[in-house]
């Protein structure tokens, strides 16, 4: 039996009221902070999914997104490195379609069934950009999900899947496009979404001799809640009792991550024996028939969707959002350090302490030190250390201040089991910070200049969420 062993998700703490975009608009959307993107959100969801599990047992990692920050360079490897996974694993990126997330899930399941991996992690994240003033700007939210699939301790048995491919220009983005393009929404919805998903779901049910009444939940990643309701009804489901809420007013449509995030939201409430139907959409559709097992009760303690939706931080002004997405060009501070740029060999040499946030523990005196040292700062013993992962340790703010040129809060954090890091602080207003405050580490993009060439990602300390 193959299926889902664990789940996790990530929603940025920031919300933009749609009112701020256009007066009279309803609800809010989750937006990535200025130091977040699809990669950082995927890392957060992956870490959430793997919480409490042995990371050594993951044999494959697939990263799905339509908004990967690189056009060339694999990011599943970066996620795997940040999650401190083994290096002898299979990694792949799935891109270009809103069903990239479910495509990755399908590939992972096939790998499990074929025996090439015992456990595979699928993560999907999106941070899609709608042009200012467009419907997409209103509807798109940012977020990520992660699913660990395997054959043992399966909490959600994936009984069957079915896929449908459909060539259509409904939404797309060219090589140099910053914003999503689309054809008239009436065409995209009637000939695209509604027709394709209806076809795919009907066929899946038919082939598995299942009826709408066999499902506790219908999980649809629809362009908007109205389309989901319309489709559910057309398929013979009762939207009021069976349709998984789309979180449209509290999060928005999170692109390739959306179907998996809605699945995670459903799993948080799932009871053993319940059967779910999941359907994605994007140049076709992937449909999955899932059944919850007794093991679901053991898969708790992940933040998932619920614990990431609250508490939240609402930004009230549209200008901040535009700045964060780089749509308003701000003055660059004049700082001498802008004349330097990151070095690829240096990042490569120090990859363990950068991506997996490894410190060292002296095997002679037990002192934890960051970054890794050759000579122990406490007992001066040479080259007698073991690596310790600090990315999953909580800590407390030891001291802090704010850089006047960039506005970044920076400080020193003492980890709960020893070790101290000098790092940036994020996700909190400066006035909220205090000595002794409990923080956790979050993988983020450092705000360097475009001319730096290599975007640098590193861990920052953030107030503990939920």
């Amino acid at each position, binding site marked *: 039996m193959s299926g889902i062993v664990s789940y996790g998700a990530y929603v940025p703490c920031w919300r933009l009221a749609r009112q701020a975009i256009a007066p009279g608009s309803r609800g809010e959307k989750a937006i990535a902070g200025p130091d977040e993107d699809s990669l950082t959100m995927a890392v957060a969801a992956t870490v959430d999914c793997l919480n409490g599990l042995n990371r050594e047992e993951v044999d494959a990692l697939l990263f799905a997104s339509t908004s990967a920050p690189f056009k060339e360079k694999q990011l599943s490897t970066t996620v795997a490195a940040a999650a401190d996974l083994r290096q002898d694993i299979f990694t792949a990126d799935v891109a270009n379609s809103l069903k990239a997330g479910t495509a990755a899930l399908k590939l992972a399941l096939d790998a499990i069934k074929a025996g090439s991996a015992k456990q595979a992690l699928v993560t999907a994240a999106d941070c899609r950009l709608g042009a200012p003033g467009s419907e997409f700007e209103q509807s798109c939210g940012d977020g990520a999900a992660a699913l660990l699939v395997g054959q043992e301790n399966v909490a959600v048995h994936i009984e069957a899947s079915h896929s449908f491919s459909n060539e259509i220009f409904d939404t797309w983005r060219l090589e140099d496009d910053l914003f999503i393009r689309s054809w008239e929404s009436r065409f995209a919805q009637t000939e695209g979404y509604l027709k394709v998903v209806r076809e795919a779901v009907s066929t899946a049910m038919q082939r598995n001799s299942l009826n709408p009444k066999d499902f506790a939940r219908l999980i649809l990643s629809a362009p908007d809640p109205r389309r989901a309701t319309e489709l559910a009804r057309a398929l013979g489901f009762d939207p009021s009792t069976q349709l998984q809420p789309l979180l449209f007013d509290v999060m928005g449509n999170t692109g390739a991550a959306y179907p998996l995030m809605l699945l995670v939201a459903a799993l948080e409430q799932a009871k053993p024996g319940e059967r779910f139907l999941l359907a994605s959409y994007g140049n076709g559709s992937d449909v999955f028939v899932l059944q919850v097992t007794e093991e679901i009760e053991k898969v708790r303690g992940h933040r998932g969707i619920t614990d990431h939706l609250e508490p939240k931080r609402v930004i009230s002004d549209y200008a901040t959002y535009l700045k964060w997405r780089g749509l308003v060009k701000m003055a660059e501070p004049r*700082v001498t350090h802008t004349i330097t740029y990151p070095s690829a060999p240096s990042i490569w040499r120090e990859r363990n302490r950068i991506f997996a946030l490894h410190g060292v523990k002296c095997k002679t005196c037990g002192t934890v030190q960051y970054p890794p040292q050759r000579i122990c700062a406490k007992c001066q013993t040479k080259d007698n250390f073991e690596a310790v992962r600090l990315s999953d340790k909580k800590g407390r703010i030891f001291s802090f201040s704010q850089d006047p040129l960039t506005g970044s809060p920076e400080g020193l954090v003492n980890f709960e089991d020893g070790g*101290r890091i000098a790092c940036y602080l994020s996700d909190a207003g400066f006035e909220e910070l205090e000595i002794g405050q409990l923080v956790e580490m979050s993988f983020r993009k450092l705000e360097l200049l475009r001319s730096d060439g290599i975007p640098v990602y590193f861990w920052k300390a953030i107030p503990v969420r939920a």
Partner: protein
Amino acid sequence: MPGIKDKVAIIGMGCTDFGEHWDKDVKDLIVEACYEAFEDAGIEPRDIQAAWWSTMQSGDLGRSLAYPLKLKYIPITRVENRCAGAHDAFINACYAVAAGAFDLVLVCGAEKLKDTGVPVAGMDPSILYGTRVEPLYVPPTAFAQLARRYFHHYGISYEEGKRLLSMIAVKNHHNGSLTPKAQFRQEITLEQAINAPMVSPPLGLLDCCGISDGAAAAIITRAELARNFRDDYILVKGAGMSCAYYYQAQVEDDLPLVSLEENVRASRMAYQEAGIKDPRQEIDLAIVHDCFTITELVIYEDLGFSPRGRAKEDIEAGTFTLEGELPVNTDGGLKCFGHPVGASGLRMMYEIYKQLQGKAGPRQVKDAKIGLANTLGGTPVEGATAAVVILGRRD
């Protein structure tokens, strides 16, 4: 260790005005400072046998000092130890003279910051092409973390802490108003200091030293030769230096960040050499590294002027004012001179030199016999180099 106490004498010093010298480059500053020193010592540039040269970013090899002065084919050592560079150059020049290697040596520090277009000094120009994952601090952000920790450790409220730091700024501005070569020569009020625009909380604009251009120079010789040049030469009584390691406050998770141990060690080394047992009683004036007001506060304790945790009482009692028990930064300090990084240590010694000779005008400390100059390169988070030089009258 026999040490160098009373073996080396300063026989001439020079110092430019410190400020925004839009019309002068670093070569002009070098010429001005060094020629004042040559004239003060009554020597010709060609008499110089060797030179030590301190700059962070306003020149490179020995040639950068030799070029403006046309020093030809003498040994010149270039020193870069950030804000402690001038101290380092001076101390090592003293060691060379005390060892008998040279009889007449020039030490010069110069920095031209106002050509960089950057509103900060002391940034690390040497971290080129690293991983860039370390947070980039401008110095106030690091010293602000020291301030926050100090307040927290000693139970000082934010408002109280701001007031204490502001009192230091007010004192230094008063002294600066009496110093013709200072960049800022106006008095400020306590309210102005407390309410100044925030830079790195809790440090506001008037907690920070200025950014300026400047140069300073000293001519040193063996003590027994000093009388050939002048009667009121000044003796080197002791010197000390101590380095923290890079990011020591990160690597050592129990480092308390309420003092700078490197300052403690550097001053202890200098006191031992000079035979000083009670610095508060035996030192007549101190020019210390007030890059930020919190730095000066912590220095009071690290250098043994105030008991640990009790700088507050001395600040409130006026201990370190011109009229106080131990005047500190009689010339206005970095606060009023600004901080042309590689030059500052020699600017401090220039003030002590003039004070010990009784030539400090309206800010003259009565009967000053022993003075201390202290610089600190680096920050409390990333690790610093501390240096102390103690100078004394020959009598």
